[in-house]
Structures are given as C-alpha cells and as structure tokens.
C-alpha cells in the first residue's frame, strides 16, 4: 500500500493541467431568477454552512433547476487554498491537509474560486475517483496521480443533474466517499488517498424515476420545485430569459449590483454563523416537530437546527427562533418521512400539517 511519495509531489507541480477552465460563458445571474424561493434559499444556506449536507432539487421540467445551481457557482465568494495543491487544501486548517501539503517545506496561500464541479451522466469511474496520469507515465515513466472530479470538488460543490439517472456503480462510489470524506484510489501498483469533502447538489425530475433511498439520505435539504402558475411570474421568467439570451453581457451587467449584494450577504452570514445561538426553546420545538413527523434518527433534528441557524445568520439574527424553524422545516425534513401508503398528501404537505399542530403560529 505504501506509495512512492515523490510521485504525488510530482503531481502537485502541475495542478489541474487537464482540468478544463471554468467555462467563461456568462451564466444567468442568481439574483435574476424569478420566484423559486425555497430552492434559492436552500442553496444559499448550503453556501453559508456546508455542513448542512447538500441540496436535492426535484421537480417539473423547465423550472430552471440547473440554471439556478450554475448561477450559484458564479456567485460564491472565493476561498483560500494552498497554491499548487490539486485538492485545494485549506491553509487555515493544518489538520485537513493532504499528504503532500503536510510535508511541504512551505505553503503559499492563494485565493481561488470555490469549485462547483459537474458530474455528467456517462462519466466513468476513473474520472470520478481519479487515476494514474497515463501521459506522464508514458512520457516520463513516472507514476503520477491524475485527480478526478472528487478531488476537484473538495471544499466546494459536486453537482449532478438528473441524479436519479446516475449509474448505480457511480452512486455506490459517491456514497462511500461522502460517508468517509476520503477518496482512495488504487491502480497500477500505487495507492492514493486524499480528502474529498464536498456539498452534494442533485437535481432531477421524479417522473424519470425515484432516487435510491441511501442517496436521498445523503442530502441535507430536499426542495420541490413547481412551474409557476400565475401569469405575471411566468411572463417575467420568459422575459428575463429572453433578454439574457439576446444580450447576456448587458443582462449580467444590469444585475451585477444585486449579485454583489447577495455575495456580501453570504459572507456576512458566514461571519455571523458561529455567533448565532440556539436557545433551548428552539431545540425543544425542533425535537417536538421531528417526533410528530416520526423522522428516523437524529439526523433530521440536527439538519433542522443547522439549517435554521444558517437561515438566522443569513437574516442577520443572532438567535434561532421558531419562525426560522418554520421556514426551513419542509426542506430539512420532507425527504426523511417514512412513506405512508395510506396518506395521499405529498411530503411537504405533511410537514406543514405537523407544523400547524406542533408549532402553531
């Protein structure tokens, strides 16, 4: 299992050589997305506190699911990383460094964009986990590790569109890495392990098929999106999309101020987050709600609390209140309900019903 230490160090010098640059095409601004408040809030919360555990977005076609996720990527404030590290190690957290960064004589911190990595359908395992760099092995006879998508997504977001159509063996792999926070690759006699902690974002249409429960479990928040029904909203969606398609530069420029404001809001919330307190009353309310809904395990309660805290931070509040809980209960809990075949109501409605009973306004 021992590894030629030099080979990994060698890989460091040429960070992401093959990694395609972030597409320079302009993306639709996050702030310009009409409606879909729950989806936008869930994504902002995951940007404020990654430990909330990712977002699953399920719903109708043409509701801008992937547009919104890609818009988030453009919005995220940059982060600090060790220069040259293929895993973008955090210089501020010596405990989380990869092997090479730990042993390096000196580490230079640079500002890099937060990775938002697409895992496309049809990706093969070797590209997901990483593999040996074939070309370097051929040209120089060096066994160097070519990081995969999991390495690129470390400390950032891994986005899977049509997540319910992802091949089973890739899902298995993701579950394994998401549980351990570490990716292990063995090939051609070398063995590499590196940290791989990322926020998983999945989207899909339930009509194409259900998601495996083990995978659903991995998502902290689950959001249901619907096509907007009222005409003025629908018109505004079409109008803005049309304006963007016709002149993306002008459109993004027109929204730059809103985008900057949202970015500032995320940063302020991150600073405030450690100071937000959770009073006993809120803890108790969360426990009562989970009990009433019969969610399995403590994970639901924990996510509900963390989500409410991130929401409070986003709103600039220093204390979690029942009002915060009420707003995030549906996304934090709706995918954790046991299925009751005799209950016709969709999960979101059941959460609302429980809310009305347990935490009446």
């Amino acid at each position: 299992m021992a590894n030629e230490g030099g080979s990994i160090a060698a890989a460091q010098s040429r960070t992401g050589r093959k990694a395609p640059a972030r597409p320079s095409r302009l993306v639709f601004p996050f702030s310009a997305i009409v409606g879909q408040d729950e989806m936008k809030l869930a994504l902002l919360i995951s940007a404020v506190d990654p430990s909330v555990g990712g977002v699953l977005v399920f719903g109708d076609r043409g509701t801008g699911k992937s547009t919104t996720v890609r818009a988030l990527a453009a919005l995220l404030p940059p982060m600090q990383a060790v220069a040259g590290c293929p895993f973008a190690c955090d210089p501020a957290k010596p405990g989380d460094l990869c092997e090479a960064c730990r042993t390096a004589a000196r580490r230079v911190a640079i500002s890099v964009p937060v990775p938002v990595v697409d895992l496309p359908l049809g990706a093969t395992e070797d590209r997901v986990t990483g593999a040996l760099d074939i070309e370097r092995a051929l040209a120089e006879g060096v066994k160097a590790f070519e990081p995969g998508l999991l390495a690129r997504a470390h400390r950032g977001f891994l986005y899977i569109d049509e997540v319910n159509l992802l091949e089973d063996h890739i899902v298995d792999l993701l579950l394994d890495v998401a549980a351990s926070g570490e990716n292990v690759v063995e090939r051609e006699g070398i063995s590499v392990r590196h940290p791989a902690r990322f926020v998983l974002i999945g989207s899909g249409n339930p009509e194409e098929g259900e998601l495996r429960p083990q995978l659903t479990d991995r998502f902290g928040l689950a959001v249901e999106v619907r096509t907007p029904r009222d005409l003025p909203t629908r018109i505004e969606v079409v109008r803005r999309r049309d304006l963007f398609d016709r002149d993306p530069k002008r459109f993004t420029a027109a929204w730059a101020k809103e985008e900057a404001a949202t970015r500032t809001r995320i940063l302020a919330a991150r600073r405030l987050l450690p100071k937000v307190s959770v009073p006993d009353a809120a803890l108790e309310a969360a426990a009562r709600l989970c009990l009433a809904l019969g969610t399995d395990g403590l994970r639901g309660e924990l996510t509900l609390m963390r989500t409410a805290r991130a929401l409070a931070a986003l709103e600039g509040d220093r204390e979690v209140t029942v009002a915060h809980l009420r707003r995030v209960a549906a996304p934090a809990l709706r995918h954790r309900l046991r299925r009751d075949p005799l209950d016709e109501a969709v999960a979101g409605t059941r959460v609302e019903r429980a809310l009305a009973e347990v935490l009446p306004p």
Partner: protein
Amino acid sequence: MSTEAGPQPADDAVQAALLLAVDPVGLGGAVLRAPAGPARDAWLAVLRAGLPAASPWRRLPLGVPDSRLLGGLDLSATLAAGRPVAERGILAEADRGIIVAAMAERLEAATAARIAAVMDSGQVAVQRDGLSDNLPSRFALVALDEGVAPEEVAPASLRARLAFHLDLTGLRLPALAAEPILAARALLPDVEAGDDLPEAMCGAAASLGIDDLRAPLLALRAARAAAALAGRARVTKEDAELAARLVLAPRATMVPTEESAEPPPEPPPPPDDQSEQKEPDRGPDPKELQEMLVAAAQAALPSGLLEALQLREAARRRSATDGKAGARRNAARRGRPVGTRAGQLRSGDRLALVETLRNAAPWQAVRRRENPHGPPIRVRKEDIRLRRFRHKAGTTAIFVVDASGSSALHRLAEAKGAVEMLLADCYVRRDQVAVVAFRGRGADVLLPPTPSLVRAKRSLAGLPGGGPTPLAAGIDAAAAIATEAARRGRTPLLVLLTDGRANIARDGTPGRPAAEEDALSAAVPIRNAGIPALLVDTAPRPHPFAKRIAEAMGARYVPLPAADAGRLSTAVAAARPAG
C-alpha cells in the same frame, strides 16, 4: 381542408424546416412524427439545403453507447499509437450542425438525459476513460418518431426542448428548391419582437393549458426566426401566428374557453438597472395579440382534440418510463446489459472485452517498459471490466384489479395501498408496477409500467368502480403488458385481484357461461408463456371458479377475503421471483 381555409399543414411543416435552418440552436430542433418515406425525406432535404454548406449532419443510431455519444478513448488508435488517443463523440462532432435521431420513440431515458444536458449547456462534458474535456456542442436535434401507437413518442425531456412537433403522416410536402439561408441568419440577432410578444405568448400558452415555460420561450424565438426569414427586422402578427401554430398548438392540453382568457397581468417591476426600453406600444395591445395567437394555435389543432389530448396524456405517462423499447436480447435469464463495471472475474461473470481492452490499451507502453518480455498485449486485473445486467432489478408487477360490483371501491383502495407499499419498498431493486382495472365492458390500463411513485399515486387517484365484470378483457390487457415487459428483458409478475364472478364475455356481451369460458381461455396463454402469476380471491366466500382460473393461469391461488394493503404487498413480495 380547402385551399382557402387558412394555412396548410404541409406549408407550415416546410416553414418549420426553414425556421430551424435560421436558428437551429435557439429552436433546439423538431420531432418529426412520420413513417420513413418521401414526406420525411423531403422535410430533411429542405432543412439540409437551408443550412450553410458543410454543416455537420450526424445520425444518432438507437442504443448508441456512451463511448460513441459522448466520446472517449479510441481503442484501435490507442493500441496502434501506444498512447491514449481521444475520439470525439457524435454530440461533439455535430457542433454547428444537425443530429438526426432515428426511432426516437425508442430512445432510452438515459440517452435522452445526456443529450438534454448538452443542449442546455452547449458543450459536452467528457469525463471518460481518463479524458477530461469540455467540447463545444451546439446543434439542433431532429427526432424521427416512427411510433404508431399514441403512447410511443420520443422522451419527454427531449420533446420539451425541441420547438417543433410535426406530424407528417399523410402529408405531401411541396417541392422546394431551397438554398442556404444566410441572410436570415445574419439578420436574426437584430430582429425586434416588441415588448408585448413575451406577454402574449405566455398568455396564449396558459389558455392552451401549456405548463412548461420552455414553450412560450421557443415560440418567441420561432417568431423572430420567421421575421428574419422574411427579411424583416421586426416581428409581425403573421410571424407570431406561425410560431403559435408550430410551437404552441402541438403542446396544447386543453381547448381554450372564453372565460379562461385572463385579464392582462401587471408584470412585477423589474429592478432599477433593468428598466428596459418601455416604448409606446406600436402593435396591438398584448391582450388582443394573445387572442390572435390563441386563435391561430386553435385553428391548427386537429379535429377531435379531446380524444387526441387523452392519447397525448397516455403518451406523456408512458414516455417517462425508463427502458429501451424493443431491446430484444436473450434477456429473460440475464437481464438487459446496462454498461460495465470494474471487478474481479469470477465464474458466472461475463467479461466486457472491449471495455477491458480500452482500459488496458493506454498502459501497454508502460508495461512493456517494465517488463520487455511478455505477451504482446498485457491485461492486468485492474483493467478487467464486467458486463452489468439489469436482471435483479427487472420485475414488473402488473396489478389487475376487478373494479366491478359492490366491493370494488374497497378492493381498489387496497390494491392502491399495496401498489404504493410495493413501490416504496422496491426502489433499490428498481421494480416497476403497472395497474389494469376492468369493469363495465372492458379493461383500462390505468398505469403503464413505471418505477415512479409520484406517477403511480397520480394515476391511482380517482379510480372509478362498479358495474359488471369483463374478466377476460382484464386478463388479456394484463397479458399484453406482461409480454411487452418480458420482451424488454424484465420479469413480469401478474397479480389478479378478483372475486372471479365473470359475467361479460370478450365481445362485450353479458352472460356468465360465455364470460367464464372466455376468461379461462384468456388465462391459458399466461401459463403457456410461463408468466408468474398470483390470483387473490377477494370474495367474502371463496368461489371455485376463481380457483379454476388460477389453475388455468398457472397462478398461485391466495384467498384473502379481506385483502388489506399490508397483507397484499406481503403476498406479492413473497411471490416475486428470486433475484
């Protein structure tokens, strides 16, 4: 239709081809429903002639593997060169051109999802075989839909993204000597649609019952393309009407009524910086325009719309079910192949030779250097790829529910509960369920095979009950689904819930003796085909005839006078063929 009765479908179809040549990427493409024949060829010829010379034109064969669709390692070139050689896939090759998908009604959901993702982003994300790249891929897709039955249509994820849905069946397209439409392409970016058009298109879409917001957006683009084609820098009423006929009409789900024409809405104020040129209206006001568009779309609706809409609904329900239609592999035993996986080769596993070689190919030079003496091609155990089959996941449980008589409502409710329990229990195995109900004169497929709990719930809600008992019709309908499921490599399981009191014969006539005889003869093919079956006798006092039916079907007979959902799902789970 007389020549004076407004626009001809054949002319509109040709217009659609020309519009697509003007703005292929913006319009996404077209679904062409037609058998192979002169009309289809003529349409494709118009499109091809309208494109700039040397535009790529690629055919997408059915069942195309990922390595060909998305690209990957070129196996033979890699082996020859001794280093990895990449191969572009069809999607990347078709950049700035057209992809023609043959037999699109049988396209797999997984393939459709890959294509849809590329259409949305304009590039292929290749993360395969050690290659990592984003290749530009902007194209229009022409989905050739040769479906005959109304539920055989191209996947919904693609239909939503393709502007035009044309039915060329029985049309004669006018001969047209088209030439590349270069001027219109150049003009397109400058075409102004006017501020009212988005509003009018959205309103028209709403009154035609179109949910998907892509529809009004595509209609807007089609109107601009029409103006560009005519050499105008401004969209006219005629352009908008053409767009409504071509884009909105085929997507209509209801006939607009007078009342449903909503009052013109006040759009929410855009943010300050976005105060777009709010010029004084030059055209008709949006309300008037919207009514004209609805009228135009309505004129293009086929007669007997309601019937057509019901068929379309059935199609919608089917089209989302996963599965490659007609993958007639010797599948029943091993399931259908669904790609490859890494693993150790043990007895019983099947080697995926090409994938294994593909994995080994790039390493040949390295391995030769490590050990110059050895076989010409060196395959190591980490190269091994095994075929994956979807045989464990392959059960399709078909519930045949007797919806007749007085106990129908109770029985239906329990069947409903059992279906949902089974579904909830079965995601991991990726099982499918289908529901057939029979009552009155015949049988209805309430739910074509689906893995989706959402759809199952929707279709089971509001199931009618009561009336006489056409048992034979119910068994026939179920047998048809079972045969189709088996043909797709799945294992069917038939669950018949009845009290066995057949009293309607196959031909719809009442009378117990004929009805029972027909039911028995309908049951025999089930046994002959070896379809596992379960007959749940729901009569308060079990009747010998139900048992006879079970014997004729080769079904297990389970008397459950008070079948409740829980016991029912347990019984079905027990009857499920092992893995």
